[in-house]
């Protein structure tokens, strides 16, 4: 089954959140509904990190913050050779951290046209 990431929409005012908050940042509401968070996003900033934390058996990893078309900003991993400010990237959901018995899935941003 294909994995999907979710945004959390306040049922009172419609404000989108990711990750889930207990109280809406805009209206103070407490009820949220899940809305799929996917598609293209604009690259806001990025880095390539060489000193990775425990559990990553590789020399470096790209990270980024992007803005989805719905305005939500999220952080994720970046797999783009030549990043440029504002470039379109595509959200893919895959394993971002391997765990014992349970891998963690999250956003990996890749070039929009492939």
């Amino acid at each position, binding site marked *: 089954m294909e994995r999907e990431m979710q945004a959390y929409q306040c049922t009172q005012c419609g404000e989108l959140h990711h990750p889930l908050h207990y109280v809406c940042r805009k209206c103070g509401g407490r009820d949220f509904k899940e809305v799929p968070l996917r598609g293209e996003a604009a690259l806001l900033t*990025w*880095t*390539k*990190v060489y000193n990775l*934390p*425990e559990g990553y058996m590789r020399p470096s990893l790209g990270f980024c*913050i992007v803005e989805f078309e719905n305005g939500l900003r999220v952080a994720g991993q970046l797999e783009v050779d030549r990043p440029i400010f504002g470039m379109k990237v595509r959200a893919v959901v895959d394993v971002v951290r391997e765990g014992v018995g349970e891998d963690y899935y999250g956003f990996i941003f890749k070039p929009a046209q492939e």
Partner: protein
Amino acid sequence: MREVGIVGVGHPPFGKYEGSLMAMLCEAAVAALDDAGLKTGAGHGVDQVLVSSMGASQVNRQTGVASALVDTLNLRPAMAETVENGPASGASAVKLGYMAIVSGMCDVVLVVGGERMRVLSGWEATDFVATMLHPEAEYAYGLTLPSFAGMFTRLIMAKYGVTERDLAMVSVKNHQNAMFNPAAHIQLVPDLEAITEDEDALTINPYVAEPLHLYDTCPVSDGAAAVVLCALDVKERFAKRPVKIAGIGQATDTHVVAEREVPTDLFAVRRAAERAYAMAGLGPQDIDVAELHDAFTILEIVEAEEVGFFPRGEGHLAVRRGETRIGGRIPINTSGGLKAKGHPLGATGVSQIIELVRQLRGEADGRQVKDAQAGLAVNFGGFGNNVVATILTREEE
């Protein structure tokens, strides 16, 4: 309102500590008690002990650290709590000590900050520090504090024209200052050209989190630092003239860094400083010396703007003009900063405050800022999601 001062400081050298966490904390505590002229044993006069540590439970597998310290030092039956606010634990503990005295519950509070991190490998330390990030939206991705600092730096560079050389200049300045601080972990000064322009610069000074290099990031250090706080109405009990805690401000920001409205701002730094200035009745123009939380060189530049020393986007120009050096308009990180003095998380906020006390007492030796009357410290928790600003002033006889 009751006024509070600092009457004792203890700051053994940061670096690699061979003994236990408790021994390290006690060494700093006893030095602070001695400096204050307090005796140990019966009649010690300490009402409350606060220990700041981010990782004692995770890294050293010890909880109830403050209770253990009180007994090890035989300060019983003083009240005791351990304070955890990430890398801002130290300034938070001083704030809580201040509140305890102002409330009237205590006259004398001993604050001891410490972290014994060198038992970890580099990647274990990075992982441990990253546990303060959002568990699902950040930590799970392998994101770390250097990752966010790198992404932040890229934005600041694009918006304001800050260069990698500007950042290296901050690093070299702080290493130069540390040469005059016997408690600093790193006692060497990198050559600016060697770490920026020379052919093998990337070998000596590799990227850690692009565009940040090794010399833009603080080392992993063991260390402890302690202060004795007292109500100014009981200052006669002590050997040294107190340095006054004139203002404290604290503010929080979004836990998830990507949710910040303006990604190039450090809102909590600005707000914490505003609150501290308002309480002290002072402004940025009144500050003579500052300790800013340079876990990454970029933070020193942007914090200096957020606390009002320079207009936004011009902090790096002040670095180029030498305004933040000792002898410049507003010397920053005379202690060597986190960059060169070291960053034992729970000790850092206390250590920054100790540097200000030394400057305001005129005890800073080769790094003394002439006639310093007021100092500001910024202790930065998370990636700026919980920040404490403290203003100290010199009290006349």
